[in-house]
């Protein structure tokens, strides 16, 4: 348990941000569930994702001015997600007339458009695609201090707006015509309410991901409505269940090495199941409500324990070095994701302690850290002395190669002969993953005189399995002129092999001659 808490400390700022998002989204979710506009919440979240994708597209577009691209790189994700979701909120207010098409159909149209745009806009951007994958899959990411500040600023602003106008928002949701008769600016309140939802969703999206934002908007409100008698009870239970589930989800995810967002979502659904089961007996419902409150208190206590409080003594003494997430002394919320990833990479390739290297490999494989930038250090660590590290690294490479651009990056590295060992490692990984091109790279490497002799010897050894034991007279230590004929024979073999001369044995993760 202490190990889990230690790891949770590592994600302290993000855990606390998740609790903030949990409270805000579950509160706003009550409006979406009661107004029966859940799909609108999802469409707004998808629009925010499209906004993030748009920022990556703009940042990569060479035909756009440098200053705009620079802005997109620095602030594009935040402004893009906020801008598109707010536009969506306004657009959904002017949906077509009910009699001509169903309002749901219009929301669905917006959702489909935003989803397609999000994918198409980042299709050619490797970093954008990884970011989008994280957003869509719902990984709770570590965010920069400035983003956390932005997030908390938004959470507080939306919370204040709802404290001031809660009753107006409720009336306009419940009985809009009566609100208009009372002289309330009903339309303005509707826009304010939807805009606050858009802001919350946009802010929460990059920190928590689409899955979690959607789950927070739907599941805790249903829990609250299942066992809360009055709206006040339902609100408190919804917010408490979102917080409690966040704690349970984080603990389970860390303990079992699972992705955080889906684990939190499943915890929420389990809590909803419990609430539904207990809703048939008043006593049981009350007990469940108290259990949910207790889990929320535990979540808050944990937040207090793991939050990276600024160390005033150190900061006053001018200790400015960026430190560990907990008590770093600089007043920042914690190191950024890239800083943490770099630290893990340094440990993987540089630590003399095998246990540290193993932990680093495991860490780099977690969804929070997974990024195609880890491919090179992983390739380097394939030569690790420890078999466990090798296994973790190979598994990590396998996972990364499954990402779009991951496979392309391996191909690129395998073609960069100035780093022969890394290139060979990349070609070998491609080959053991069942990619024929890995063998092609290896055959090309045989003829490269810059390649170290030992590497060429290893190459030959590897290639002899698919070639059925043949070496075509190649000798890594012989004079290049003597190998010319053998290299030509290997190229001929490769031309035939790529046209169907090989079979893939998935169990052995090797290619064999077709007739063997």
């Amino acid at each position, binding site marked *: 348990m202490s190990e889990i808490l230690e790891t949770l400390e590592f994600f302290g700022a993000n855990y606390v941000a998740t609790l903030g998002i949990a409270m805000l989204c579950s509160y706003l979710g009550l409006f979406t569930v009661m107004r*029966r506009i859940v799909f609108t919440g999802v469409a707004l979240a998808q629009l925010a994702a499209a906004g993030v994708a748009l920022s990556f597209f703009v940042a990569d577009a060479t035909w756009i001015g440098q200053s705009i691209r620079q802005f997109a790189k620095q602030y594009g994700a935040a402004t893009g997600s906020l801008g598109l979701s707010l536009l969506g909120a306004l657009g959904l207010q002017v949906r077509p007339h009910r009699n001509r098409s169903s309002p749901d159909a219009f929301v669905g149209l917006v959702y489909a458009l935003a989803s397609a745009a999000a994918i198409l806009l980042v299709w050619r951007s490797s970093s954008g695609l990884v970011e989008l994958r994280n957003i869509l899959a719902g990984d709770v990411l570590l965010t920069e201090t400035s983003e956390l500040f932005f997030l908390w600023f938004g959470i507080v602003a939306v919370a204040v707006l709802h404290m001031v106008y809660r*009753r107006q928002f409720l009336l306009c949701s*419940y*009985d809009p*015509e*009566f609100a208009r008769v*009372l002289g309330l600016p009903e339309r303005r309140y509707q826009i304010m309410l939807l805009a606050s939802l858009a802001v919350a969703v946009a802010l929460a999206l990059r920190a928590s991901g689409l899955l979690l934002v959607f789950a927070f908007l739907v599941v805790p409100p249903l829990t609250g409505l299942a066992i809360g008698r*009055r709206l006040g009870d339902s609100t408190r239970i919804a917010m408490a269940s979102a917080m409690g589930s966040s704690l349970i989800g984080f603990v389970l995810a860390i303990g079992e090495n699972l992705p955080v967002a889906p684990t939190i979502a499943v915890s929420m659904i389990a809590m909803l199941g419990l609430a539904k089961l207990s809703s048939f007996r008043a006593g049981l419902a009350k007990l469940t409500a108290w259990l949910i409150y207790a889990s929320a208190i535990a979540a808050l206590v944990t937040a207090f324990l793991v939050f990276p409080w600024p160390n005033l003594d150190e900061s006053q003494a001018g200790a400015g070095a960026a430190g560990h997430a907990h008590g770093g002394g600089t007043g920042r919320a914690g190191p950024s994701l890239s800083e943490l990833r770099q630290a893990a990479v340094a440990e993987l390739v540089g630590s003399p302690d095998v246990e540290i290297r193993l932990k680093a490999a495991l860490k780099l494989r977690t969804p929070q850290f997974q990024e195609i930038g880890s491919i090179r250090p992983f390739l380097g660590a394939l030569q690790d002395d420890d078999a466990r590290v090798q296994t973790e690294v190979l598994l990590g490479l396998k996972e990364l190669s499954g990402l779009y651009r991951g496979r392309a990056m391996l191909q690129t590295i395998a073609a960069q002969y100035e780093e022969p060992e890394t290139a060979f490692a990349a070609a070998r990984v491609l080959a053991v993953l069942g990619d024929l091109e890995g063998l092609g790279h290896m055959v090309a490497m045989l003829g490269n005189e810059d390649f170290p002799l030992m590497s060429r010897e290893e190459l030959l050894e590897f290639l002899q399995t698919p070639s059925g034991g043949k070496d075509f007279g190649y000798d890594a230590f012989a004079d290049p002129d003597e190998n010319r004929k053998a290299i030509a024979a290997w190229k001929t073999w490769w031309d035939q092999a790529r046209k169907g001369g090989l079979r893939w044995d998935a169990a052995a993760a090797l290619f064999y001659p077709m007739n063997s």
Partner: protein
Amino acid sequence: MSGEDASPSTDEASKVESEVLISLKNAEIGYKNLSLVKNVNLEIRRGDFIAIVGPNGSGKTTILRNILGVLKPLSGKCEVKGTLGYSPQRSQLDPIFPFTAEEVVAMGLLGLEETAEEIDLAENSKRVAGALDSCGMLGFRDRLFRELSGGQKQRVLVARALVSEPEVLILDEPTNDLDLRGEHEVMELVRTLHEEGRTVVMVSHILHVVSRYAHRIALINGSELIVDDASGILTSERLGELYGIPISVFVAEDGRRLISSNSEGEVR
């Protein structure tokens, strides 16, 4: 007969002197480009109890929405001088919202709070209790609105309309889907409120209820509005012509009317 009654009764003659709270002058009622009722001339005075009746889709609720200020007449004028309290159709309210009766009634104060410089919470709470009490619903203040019977719900909605102490009480189909007991409870409450001095405007298509409680009836006949008392409006000939089926109107000794379709095809 179009517009205001050409031959007002003695009672109505006395009302001529009283203040006009709502007036529609040469108004064309409809929405978007669809005209429903033309040349509407209607004056509602302090102390009136008027019912707007007509077949489905004739424009009853649209007239009401013009009075409430939610819609504007396509042409002509609709002037409202008094403050309005509105009780909508119950079916408009989604039961998923877990509001108590007290919370529903408190919503009626939001319009006042929007313009008030200072909100006295204790005074508001007192007003809510008073409105619930005047509708006989104080004992149900903590009950969920969705768990109340149809008649009780309607009384809570009347309390919500009353909580801001309006001069005119506007009711949209208050007895729709109610059983006889619910109908009786709601309409007796409305009668009491009228007797206490409130002006009542009600939309309904339940003709026997209208004939019993309303002093004046505004009937939408095609695209014109006819205003008269029950004896002038609710005749078998006029109703038969309006609804396109034979209708019988029986008048009891105490003046109540029983109105039903006539299966034998006679118009009596």
